[in-house]
């Protein structure tokens, strides 16, 4: 976009770059907010359908405007800060969650080269940003100065650290295969990866990695069945207990933006991102971003499906799954994948 701005308006590189980046941020952030509103509606509809209910169906056609009505309601409410709370951190916590949820989208490629920041360490950046997500929760839990949010914060910090370890090893497998941290190049490397199929998921060595990534992603975003940080039967609403109005809404938006990001990562790392699933010419006539959005939608359906059907894990089961199952298995697969690549790709 920078080069085009230079051509059209005769701007210097710096000015053109500045405007291109600014526009790029708007082009990602605004549709993302709209997508979050619609995905909350979709989540509720899917959940309702699985429970044989109707779900939201009053506001707008088919209840499509439900999220906007909720947003307006929340916007008009009073923000309440508990008197015992640590005020600055209490207000900052939801902002941190929301900001971090948006930040990672900077490196997701929407089409060949259509990415805001085409950096060499894209995947590491995603890992770094997603590891920040826990601070919103922990800060909220501590600053609320209340028991249930505090328990929730403890759980959140332990849970995120546990699952980040296995996510790291899973990503190492992908990076080993692609030979790069750049997400755009990772997607390109998946073209006709196995016969005519685009995507690492069709590779028998990486398929188990994808399954673990999907499950770890649910744990990392605190989605059911790993939503122990806001387990309503134990912790009221967890770290959100003391929040109201817009600060509460920011948590909601941030949470769903994170879920969408996890879906996008699943699509990008294992299902060929903006590539069509099959390497067949007519499929390339459909623009890449449509393929990516379709895949994100597919994964979001899986997330909703799991939320609607799987009961919540107990805390010790969660820790056991993370440390005793995922960690050794993913570590084993790192050895397996690097050994396989050593023999086939690098000789010796």
């Amino acid at each position: 976009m920078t080069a085009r701005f230079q051509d059209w308006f005769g701007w210097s590189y710096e000015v053109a770059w500045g405007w291109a980046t600014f526009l790029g941020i708007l082009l990602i952030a605004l549709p993302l907010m709209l997508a979050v509103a619609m995905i909350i509606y979709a989540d509720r509809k899917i959940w309702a359908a699985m429970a044989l209910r109707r779900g939201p169906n009053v506001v707008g056609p088919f209840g499509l405007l439900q999220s906007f009505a909720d947003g307006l309601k929340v916007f008009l409410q009073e923000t309440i800060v508990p008197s015992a709370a640590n005020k600055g951190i209490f207000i900052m916590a939801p902002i941190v969650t929301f900001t971090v949820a948006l930040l990672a989208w900077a490196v997701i490629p929407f089409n060949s080269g259509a990415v805001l920041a085409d950096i060499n360490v894209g995947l590491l950046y995603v890992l770094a940003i997603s590891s920040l997500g826990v601070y919103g929760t922990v800060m909220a839990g501590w600053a609320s100065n209340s028991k249930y949010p505090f328990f929730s914060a403890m759980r959140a910090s332990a849970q995120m650290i546990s699952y980040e370890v296995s996510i790291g090893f899973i990503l190492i497998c992908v990076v080993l295969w692609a030979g790069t941290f750049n997400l755009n190049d990772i997607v390109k490397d998946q073209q006709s990866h196995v016969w005519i199929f685009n995507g690492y998921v069709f590779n028998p060595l990486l398929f188990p990695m994808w399954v673990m990534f999907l499950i770890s992603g649910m744990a990392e975003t605190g989605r059911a069945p790993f939503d122990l940080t806001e387990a309503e039967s134990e912790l009221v609403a967890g770290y959100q207990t003391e929040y109201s109005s817009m600060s509460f809404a920011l948590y909601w938006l941030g949470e769903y933006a994170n879920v969408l990001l996890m879906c996008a990562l699943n699509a990008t790392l294992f299902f060929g991102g903006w590539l069509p699933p099959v390497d067949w010419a007519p499929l390339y006539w459909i623009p890449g971003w449509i393929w990516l959005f379709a895949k994100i939608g597919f994964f979001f359906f899986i997330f909703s499906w799991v939320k609607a059907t799987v009961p919540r894990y107990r805390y010790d089961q969660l820790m056991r799954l993370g440390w005793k199952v995922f960690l050794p298995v993913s570590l084993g697969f790192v050895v397996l994948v690097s050994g396989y690549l050593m023999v086939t790709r690098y000789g010796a």
Partner: protein
Amino acid sequence: MIQTLAFYLFAVLLIASAVFVILSRNPVHSVLWLIVAFFNAAGLMVLVGAEFIAMLLVIVYVGAVAVLFLFVVMMLDIDFAELRAGFIKNFPLGIAIALVLLAELVLGLGAYQAGALQLGAADGASAAALGVSNTAAIGALLYTRYLFLFEAAGMLLLVAMIGAIVLTHRQRGDSRGQNVSRQNQRRPGDATRNERPEVGKGVVL
């Protein structure tokens, strides 16, 4: 222009947040300021073109170490009077450490002025890259020239980890663990049975 502005922004914020780490009375605030400091340090590293190190700094220190710090500090029962009493008691030691750090700084800056080592240029430009991304460059160095040191460091960390686990892990006799494979093998027939007792008779459990 933008580079200079960004450098001064990151540098000022880094120093300011480092000062706040020491000055803030609440330990939780200190940890949060420390996180801000890590962030700005990462920003500085991106500026000199060491994006791999910058990302590692954020992942390792902000993502893992600081979370553990926060985890521990959050659970502290803070008594400010006690903290102040400790301040006076530890004051001489603190001064001694500060003097050592100052001496190191003076020594380091003096050596840098003398120009003994030529690692990077004084204007902040990094040493000449090998024409590859710095992730690949670091990997190539670590796994060839410094392979032994790298593996030795790994061994050391492993030993430290095992040591920590051995020191803190104790088997409590009265705790009952969970055997998942046994739970999964359990069938309804193992635990339940159908009985149809006659009227007036009970069931032997």
